[in-house]
C-alpha cells in the first residue's frame, strides 16, 4: 500500500488516556507527543537517538521517541514521564531524583527516569555497573551521573517488594475518557 495523504488518523493510549491525532505518518512520535498531545515532559535533544532525552515506553518497551514515526505507535500504549506521578504524589524514582540531587538543569531528567523505570522493570535490584549500562543511552551534561546512579539505587531499594505502579493499574483516568487533537 502507498499513502500519499499528508495527514492520517492515529489513535493510541498515552498514560492510560485515549488520544486521536491527525498527523503525517512519518512525523516522529516525539513531535506528536509534544506538539499535538501537549505532553512536553519528554525533550527534543539530538533528534538522532543519541541523547535519550525523548525516551518513552511503547507497549512497555523503552524507545527514543524521536526515532519512531507516529505510524508505528498506532493502536499502542505509550507511557511518558507525565504518567508517573499520581497528583502530587511522586513516583519513587522521581522522589529519589529529588532526594539525591540527581538533576541540575533537568533537561535529561524525564528521559533518565523513563530509562531507569524500564531498567528496574527488568532488573529490580541492579548494581551500579548495571545502572550505568541501563542508562548508557541517556546523556547528562550537568551531574556527572554519580547522583543519578545513587537515585536509581535508592528508588530500587524503596520499590523492593512494592513493585512498580503501572499506569494502567492506577487507573488515573476513567477508561472512556478520550481526547481528539
Amino acid at each position, binding site marked *: 500500500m502507498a499513502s500519499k495523504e499528508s495527514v492520517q488518523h492515529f489513535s493510541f493510549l498515552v498514560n492510560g488516556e485515549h488520544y486521536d491525532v491527525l498527523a503525517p505518518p512519518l512525523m516522529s512520535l516525539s513531535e506528536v507527543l509534544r506538539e499535538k498531545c501537549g505532553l512536553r515532559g519528554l525533550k527534543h535533544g539530538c533528534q538522532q*537517538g543519541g541523547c535519550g532525552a525523548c525516551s518513552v515506553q511503547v507497549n512497555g518497551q523503552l524507545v527514543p521517541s524521536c526515532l519512531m514515526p507516529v505510524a508505528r505507535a498506532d493502536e499502542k500504549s505509550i507511557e511518558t514521564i507525565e504518567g508517573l506521578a499520581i497528583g502530587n504524589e511522586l513516583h519513587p524514582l522521581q522522589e529519589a531524583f529529588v532526594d539525591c540531587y540527581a538533576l541540575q538543569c533537568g533537561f535529561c531528567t524525564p528521559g533518565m527516569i523513563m530509562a531507569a523505570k524500564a531498567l528496574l522493570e527488568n532488573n529490580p535490584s541492579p548494581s551500579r555497573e548495571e545502572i550505568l549500562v541501563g542508562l548508557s543511552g541517556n546523556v547528562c551534561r550537568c551531574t556527572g551521573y554519580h547522583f543519578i546512579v545513587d537515585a536509581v539505587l535508592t528508588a530500587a531499594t524503596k520499590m523492593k517488594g512494592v513493585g512498580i505502579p503501572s499506569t494502567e493499574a492506577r487507573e488515573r483516568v476513567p477508561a472512556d475518557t478520550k481526547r481528539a487533537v
Partner: protein
Amino acid sequence: MSFPELLTPETVEQAVEFLATEDRKTLIFGGGTLVQPLITLGVDDHDAVLDLEGLRLSQIILENDLVSCGAMVRLSQLAQALPQEYIQAAVSAIGGPALRNLATIGGNLFAKPPYGDLATLLLALDAELEFADQGSRGWISLNEFYNQRDHDADRPALVIRVRFSAAPKRRVVFRKLGRKHLNTASVVTVAISLLFAESMISEARLALGGIGHRPLRVEPAERVLVGSSLTAEVIELAAQAALQNCDPRTDVYASAWYRKRMIPVQIRRALNELNAREAP
C-alpha cells in the same frame, strides 16, 4: 514541513516492485534509527520511504549451529536469543538500550562507519544474506554484497534474512575501541573468527569496522594466520599485515593517524584474547 510518501508493502514481491519504480527515489525504513533522523531534520531528498514492518521479518530461527534472522530482528531481540559472548559484546557496543529496541540487524549492514559494529562481526562470521531485487532472489555472502555495492551503490536491493554459523568450535572475538566505554561511535572495531585444526589455524576471518567507508575483511592478515599457530610472532605479523589494505578516515571521533596506530594494537589484543582462551 514536507514528508516523503510512505509505502507499506505486505509482501517481499510488493516491496521489490515499489523499489523498482524508476520515477521515484525510495529509501528503505527498517528500525528507523538511520532514516527517521533524515526525515525529521529534512535533509533527505527521497520521494518515498518503504516501511518493512509489514513484511514480518522479525523471526530468529536456530537450526543446529545455523542462526537465521529476519532483517527486521531488533538488536535487543538478537541479544536475548543468542548468549554467545561475541554477540553480546557486539550488540551492547551499539547505542543504548532504547536504541537497540528499534535498531535492526538488516539496518546495521547499511550503517556507515563509524557505526555498523554488528556488520563487522557478521563479516567475520562469514554471514550470508538473502536478498531480493527486480528479477532475482537469492543468497550472497555479506563480503560479496559489500564488494558489489562498492561498484553499484545505488542498485536497490532488499535484504530479507541474514544467516551465520554460531558453531561452538569457532573461536570468535569482538573488540571495539571508542571515545567512551558505552554508547559511542567506533574508532576501530575488530572482529576475528578462527577455526583450528589441532593447534593450527585452518580458517581465519578478520574484519575491521569504523575505519573506512564500510566494514571490510582484511585478507592479508587472514593469510598470515591460516596454517600458523597463534604465536607472538604470528600475532605481530597479522597485526602489521592488516594495515596493508585499509585506509582509515578522519572524522570527529578520531584522526586517520590515530586509527592507523590503533588498528594493530586492537588486532594484537583481540588475538591475544583468543589465544588465552581454552580450545572449545
